[in-house]
């Protein structure tokens, strides 16, 4: 059971990270970054660091909102 969660976390983190690096559109990059964050939170919960999981879950959307602030001004990012 624990191994299944570990395999799932590795899958989420690796695929989210590689996809965030390879995809060209900036909005798609942010979505793939969300998948990577899901993998990080799953790893943290599996190792028992619930306080760090709280911090990551609360602060990563704030960083995404900051990047989105920059992204709203670019017209060519929407294509």
């Amino acid at each position, binding site marked *: 059971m624990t191994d299944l969660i570990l395999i799932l976390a*590795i899958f989420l983190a690796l695929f989210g*990270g*590689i996809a965030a*690096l390879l995809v060209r559109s900036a909005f798609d990059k942010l979505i793939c970054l969300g998948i990577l964050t899901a993998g*990080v939170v799953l790893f943290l919960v599996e190792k028992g*660091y619930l306080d760090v999981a709280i911090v*990551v879950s609360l602060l990563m959307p704030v960083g995404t909102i900051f990047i989105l602030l920059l992204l709203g001004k670019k017209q060519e*990012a929407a294509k």
Partner: protein
Amino acid sequence: MIVPPEFIVGCILLLAGVIFTAYPREKTYLTRLINMEVAEFGLVFIMLSFNETLALVTFVAVNVVTTLIFVRVIEKKEGA
């Protein structure tokens, strides 16, 4: 000696993130900023494998402030 899986995942993410930050597919500031976040998560994974709780909390909290400062800098640079 057995290597924990989060260390391997962290090393892969850190190396790939650094390489793609240096040589991105589209050479814009925004692409480099988002690719740098992937490398930051790789460092989070490596610190997780060494059981450094306080370092993890501090690094994640400071990352958001760093992102805010970079966003302000890129806004000024692209607005000029």
